[in-house]
């Protein structure tokens, strides 16, 4: 196992370094180094931002919503899924910050007294984004850490070297597993789950407001918030599976992350995939039903215009591919699942690209119609965030409890022995 881990870490670090170089270049030269142009001002970067945020949402869904619904199978994957959330949000945050053009002034978005006597404009959805994403990142980290503490205490008590004892000891905050502490801890866990649920829905709704509050045809629709949330869960579950299936084999977690857990996730993916497909058809229907020629043009252009290939990839990967999950064989064979999940992630990336690029390249003014093509720096930064994500995930899985130990114990039959006294 460690050998595979080191190879994977090496690859991840190489990708991350490519990204670091590209970010350096883009920051120092300006975002003209990207393929963005006057018409398509939100291009790969915002596509990637929405894509990463969406991936992160599955982690919260698993850790919070499934917890509230008492789905016990979630304990096998919730820790890893929460970590995935945090790392995905980190990757997502990189893009809008660079997109500001002068990222070293990004802190101007935080309201603070300054000698220009200027304050942020809170009626802009971009400011809503700042608050939603930072609240989301903070909550995810605190929730994750809180879940980690009892397990860190286990690590503390089982480590053999003094250094490890000291590090895990400090991180575990002196957790003693006392019943009085558990009592408050369980309450707090429940409350955090209850808070994260509306939060995660609000975050992707706010991200969709970035588009929906504009007047752009193809963006200005009320279906966006639920449609974005469904898409987020769809891509997020696909990502969880992409990560957990190899981890199951590499780290011998097969007895904890069981085949039926994977199957359950496949079903969630299928259900959310159907919602996404439904949303696509509703968009077309509304464009026709609205009688607005601009809306109609936008959607015809989306499927038959110069970006037809991205629209086709989107529909293939997001509507057709998940249908395979109807078959039990496809929900149980790890290779098939991995391939389908990767395709779904590609498809969800294209969804955001289609929304952004096709709408911006054909706005109201034909004189500013244009096409978009990425430069190598677009690609490099995106690859870099993948490297960053993988690096963090690999470190996490090696040095922190990747499965929620105390929660898994809690679901064992022995834990309920005290109930019938």
């Amino acid at each position, binding site marked *: 196992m460690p050998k595979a881990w080191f190879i994977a870490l090496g690859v991840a670090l190489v990708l991350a370094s490519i990204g670091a170089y590209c970010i350096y270049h883009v920051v120092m030269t300006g975002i003209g180094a990207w393929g963005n142009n006057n018409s398509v001002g939100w291009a790969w970067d915002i596509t990637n931002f929405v894509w990463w945020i969406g991936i992160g949402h599955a982690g919260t869904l698993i850790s919070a919503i499934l917890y509230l619904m008492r789905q016990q199978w979630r304990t096998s994957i919730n820790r890893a899924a929460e970590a995935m959330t945090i790392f995905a949000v980190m990757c997502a945050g990189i893009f809008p910050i660079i997109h500001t053009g002068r990222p070293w002034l990004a802190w101007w978005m935080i309201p603070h007294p300054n000698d220009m006597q200027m304050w942020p404009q809170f009626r802009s959805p971009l400011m809503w984004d700042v608050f939603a994403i930072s609240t989301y990142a903070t909550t995810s980290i605190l929730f994750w850490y809180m879940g980690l503490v009892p397990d860190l205490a286990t690590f503390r008590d089982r480590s053999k070297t003094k250094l490890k004892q000291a590090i895990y000891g400090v991180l575990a905050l002196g957790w003693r597993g006392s019943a009085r502490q558990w009592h408050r801890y369980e309450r707090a866990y429940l409350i955090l789950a209850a808070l994260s649920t509306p939060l995660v829905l609000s975050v992707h709704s706010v991200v969709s*407001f970035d588009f929906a509050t504009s007047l752009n045809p193809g963006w200005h629709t009320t279906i966006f918030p639920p449609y974005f949330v469904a898409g987020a869960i769809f891509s997020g579950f696909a990502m969880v599976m992409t990560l957990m299936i190899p981890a199951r084999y590499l780290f011998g977690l097969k007895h904890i992350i069981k085949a039926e857990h994977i199957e359950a996730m496949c079903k969630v993916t299928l259900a959310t995939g159907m919602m996404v497909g439904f949303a696509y058809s509703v968009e077309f229907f509304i464009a026709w039903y609205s009688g607005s020629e601009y809306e109609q043009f936008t959607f015809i252009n989306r499927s038959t215009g110069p970006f037809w290939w991205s629209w086709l990839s989107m529909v293939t990967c997001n509507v057709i591919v998940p249908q395979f999950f109807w078959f039990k064989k496809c929900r149980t064979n790890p290779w098939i699942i991995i391939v389908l999940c990767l395709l779904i992630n590609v498809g969800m990336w294209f969804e955001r690209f289609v929304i952004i690029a096709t709408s911006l390249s054909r706005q109201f003014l034909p004189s500013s119609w244009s096409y978009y093509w990425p430069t190598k720096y677009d690609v490099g930064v995106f690859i870099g965030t993948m490297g960053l994500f993988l690096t963090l995930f690999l470190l996490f899985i090696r040095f922190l409890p990747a499965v929620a130990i105390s929660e898994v114990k809690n679901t064992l039959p022995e834990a309920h022995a005290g109930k019938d006294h």
Partner: protein
Amino acid sequence: METNENNDHDEATSAHAGETSPATGSTSGHDGARASSNSDEGELYGVLAEFDSPGALVKAARKVKDAGYGDFDCYSPFPVHGIDEAMGIKRTILPVLVFCGGITGTFLGFLLQWYCNASAWQWNVAGKPVWSIPANVPIGFETTILLSVFTTFFGMWILNKLPQVWHPFFRLDRFTKVTDDGFMLGIEAKDGRFDAVETKKLLESAGAIAVEECYLDASPANTKMPMFIYGVIICTTALALVPFALVYKARASHSKDPHYHIFGDMDFQAKVKSDQYNDLFADGRSNRGEISGTIPRGWLNDDTSYAQGLENGAWITSFPTSVEVSRDLLRRGKQRYEIYCSPCHGVDGRGAGMVAVRSQKIGQGILPRNLVDPGAGVITQPNGQLFNTISNGNNTMMGYGAQIPVADRWAIVAYVRALERSQFAAGTDLTDAERSAAMGATP
């Protein structure tokens, strides 16, 4: 790989004997049930009993509570169901605190937005009201969640009196099993009913598989904080103050040096700027003078009254002959005035433009002159002087000659005159016929 080991319940129990007790780092060789009375053993802290299952722990907890003990606690690797009730743990007030935190978050979120956008810096977005609740709901929602989350997270640790990396029970090797598969019950000696013999008996009769005494550490080496930790704290505090000191110094002193360019900010570009040194030319200047004997197109200023508002060295009071004052000229002047002058002087010329209002509010800058009030003195200025102010500026107002072509400047002059007339017209400005028409019935 840790994850792997930790989930292997069977072999875990035996793995502990002789390990160090982690939080204290002490390696004293307690073995099992009896704590020896080493020289570093101080006062008795309490007794710790181990049980073989969560069910037994719950039963014992009930027994201990019924015996009247208060200062005791149960320890387990996961929350044992039914133990709260057996121990008589009251419901935590955490949810109430979280509710208060959430309400505070809502309030602060809206207050922040109101202060920023409706009070301190009123953004005018397409003439919409500066304070409209729907647009402020998303952020109000997020701050509600954020403060609730903070209250939950920090409130829980504070109520649990954590972080506290040290605890007497950590001195017992047995206690490390709690985070793995041990179920323990500890009674503190400070409890009124505590009796070294009786309490142990009680625990044994409750089904404990082992009962152990726990003593406080008496050796100063183990209870005092090591010196080097003080050193680290002092050093980090001192280092943390350095940036603030630098900022303070920078605020209080002036410097002629250009600022550090960590980021270029497009300050350095591959182009020649005016007044820069340039070795392309013999005189080393990047500014090139006019070629002698030539002038740029359209720059022939032989009509000084038109180009400068001057005639024989004096401001002209009328308009140059080439400017025909007409309705079209006034219309053009109005449009140009509203673009170039109204932001400061206001559309009515009285000096209440957006820039002026803002600068008055923050108490900075010089207020623009009232252009129309006879008391302010502009009205008596000759046209040529007004033209010159537009071209070259006056005192702190900069000139607009570079932006506004000469013809438009005259149009603005005409329009400023119209503004003055329209607001401060005298009766004598009308002809007799007009006056009698305006007076109505009077013949």
